[in-house]
């Protein structure tokens, strides 16, 4: 497919190298007195666990984005879907329990959040597929609606934009270690998504729907249905990501500023672009972005007097650097286009 361009692996390696260099340079820049060895010592099992938890919303958003965009619908509203599900999970769990949810009630909130995210994605799908909306503007609208709606509803329910804290989902024992439920879901979803996309008929339909919808139509598969499933899957995965963030790690909904999601949906988009629409690659990129985030948290815990806002900027700068170096990823041919079936 790509002749003059570097192969996927080369690109991946180049990107990873850039990432590591940037991270190390940043560290060197901020703490010239600290040896890198001290940073390396940060990386232990606890660190990996914390990175995995931070990966959850990014990776799920990325998985969802892959399904939508491969089917031909660019969904830049992923950030909004994460916000909606993070809010819904806490709101439902908090409301049905009267403020102090049990594990079962947390799980009900979790499921409700995924449903809410899927419903929002359905709205987006209808707007894009039936009413031929500009996908970029409609995706922007999904984000802005969520950005307004979640704090609005928070104020209606709790009288302030932040929810009171709730419990988080219990870890369960998995073989030798404790496992965080959303992390486990993620570790299962990533290979599952890869399998579905690369080894099943449905995966081939998704691929064809984004690359050559006419061919798909010709062999008798309904392009509309495939695209609907792609977008709904993006809602499903984002729902898991948002609820996983709120109930799996934070235990609260924070609606101030850019909300607790704080750009993770956007980073998810970059993660799958970086991973070249491959779920495994997208997961790797999400993991790298999350590890930068975790590094920032850990450095603060270690008591370095570094302005946290500045370190907080590193993942976003990395995204920009990566986009600039990796540059164009080949988006599906028909992504962003509306498809009109010849015969009705």
């Amino acid at each position: 497919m790509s002749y003059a361009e570097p192969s996927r692996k080369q690109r991946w390696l180049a990107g990873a190298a850039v990432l590591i260099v940037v991270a190390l340079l940043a560290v060197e820049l901020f703490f010239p007195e600290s040896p890198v060895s001290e940073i390396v010592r940060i990386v232990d099992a606890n660190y990996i666990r914390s990175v995995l938890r931070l990966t959850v919303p990014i990776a799920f958003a990325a998985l969802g984005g892959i399904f939508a965009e491969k089917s031909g619908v660019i969904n830049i509203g992923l950030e909004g879907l994460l916000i909606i599900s993070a809010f819904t999970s806490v709101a439902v769990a908090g409301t049905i329990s009267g403020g102090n949810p049990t594990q079962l009630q947390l799980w009900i909130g979790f499921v409700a959040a995924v449903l809410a995210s899927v419903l929002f994605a359905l709205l987006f799908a209808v707007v894009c597929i039936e009413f031929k909306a500009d996908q970029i503007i409609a995706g922007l609208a999904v984000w802005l609606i969520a950005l307004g709606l979640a704090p609005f509803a928070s104020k209606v329910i709790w009288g302030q934009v932040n929810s009171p804290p709730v419990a988080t989902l219990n870890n369960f024992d998995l073989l030798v270690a404790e496992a965080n439920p959303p992390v486990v879901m993620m570790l299962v979803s990533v290979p599952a998504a890869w399998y579905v996309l690369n080894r099943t008929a449905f995966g081939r339909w998704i691929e064809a729907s984004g690359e050559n919808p006419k061919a798909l139509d010709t062999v008798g598969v309904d392009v509309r249905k495939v695209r609907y499933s792609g977008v709904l899957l993006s809602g499903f995965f984002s729902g898991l990501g948002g609820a996983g963030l709120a109930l799996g790690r934070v235990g609260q909904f924070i609606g101030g500023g850019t909300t607790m999601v704080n750009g993770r949906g956007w980073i998810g988009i970059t993660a799958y672009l970086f991973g070249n629409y491959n779920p495994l690659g997208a997961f790797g990129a999400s993991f790298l972005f999350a590890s930068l985030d975790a590094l920032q948290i850990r450095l603060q815990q270690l008591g370095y007097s570094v302005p946290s806002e500045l370190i907080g900027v590193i993942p976003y700068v990395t995204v920009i650097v990566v986009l600039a170096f990796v540059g164009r990823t080949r988006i599906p041919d028909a992504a962003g286009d509306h498809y009109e079936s010849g015969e009705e």
Partner: protein
Amino acid sequence: MSDSSGDGRDAPDDGSESWQTRADRALARLVDASAAERILISFAALALSVVVGAFIILVSGWVATCQSPFFALGGVGSFCYDPVSVYRVMLVGAAWPPYNFAITLKETTLLLFTGLSVAVAFRAGMFNIGTQGQLVLGALGTAMSVLWVAPFVPVGVLGGLVLIAVGLLVGALVGGLWGAIPGALKAYADANEVITTIMLNFVASGVAFTLVSEVFKDPQSQTVQTRSIPGFAQLQAVFFDSTVFSMLALVGALALVAGIYWMLNGTSFGYDLRTSGVQPEAAEYGGVDSKRMMVSSMGVSGALAGLGGAVYVLMVASRWQTGIPSLGFDGITVSILAGNNPLGVVPAALLFGALKTGSLAIEFQLAVPKQLVGVLRGLIILFIAMPEFFRMVGARFRFGDERPTVATDGAGETTVGVDETATGAGETTDGTTAGDEGGDER
């Protein structure tokens, strides 16, 4: 661009010239023909947002608990908020008392800058979602430059003029440079500007916060903010007795609207900018360096956002402080509502200025959260994104059988003319559709 009636110097290049004239005409037709439809769609989207918003108000009033619900239904529950009175308070609160009207005009002034910023980028075929970041850094540049220069100028009107000029200039410069970054990244590294501008928003607020908290912080203050700029450097209220609104700024912003309109429609730079937005390939063929155009149009866009930040500091806050309102994101809505037309930005900014002031009134008077405006903002964008929806509804319910009647009003001289006008109108609409899609493709 020199037109074909110019002197002989341009004549030899006949092919290129006729292409240019043709493209010019096509572009003009596209803008003119779509104007009416765009206005219709904007109004329809507004109306639909009001309806859906009313539904959201009802539902949230049903969820909320209150002393005296406006309406209770056995078996269903009680509703705290009355949509009609919410909208009434919102509209009245935007204009009365006069203090509120000054707030509305303040918001309008600021939104004119961010709306223009988004519109200019849009016209060049670029999505500038980074207006917020450009504004935040522009504001910081303004605050810092005014504070630095202030000791060297005489206290008084003259010194104030110098400081304001310096502040506006630096704000525009910083915003412009920050805006040019995603332009350059798109031009030379093919990085999607939607993503980079959003990322740069996060970077801008983080960098600005760090700079102020670590270096430029006001030692007297607990919160992260710079020292206050001297009073004589603040834009003075002329008309309303208000500390946050200056008629000078509004007049300046309106002059800027006229200037940008002229730039887009009366200069060769504007022509190149619009052509590369609508038809990049044709623009390249016509000799436009599209890469440089990306950088410069984003630079202009960022400079406008930076000016907004400068005015925010010089007129409203008198310092840089955390929690700068989301004027940049509102600018996106303003521009999209205005069909990305600089002149349309004026009513759209006024409407959003009114809505924002009204939202304070509904929170104060009715205890309805002011974030409602954020929801309406998103809804408006969503509905404007789907013109096809309104076309379908229109075709089904109204225009399908009433179009001849509408045409009669316009050209009632001959019966034949009516038919022709009707078909002509239909064709124009179709042409617009095709043109719009071509323009949105990227």
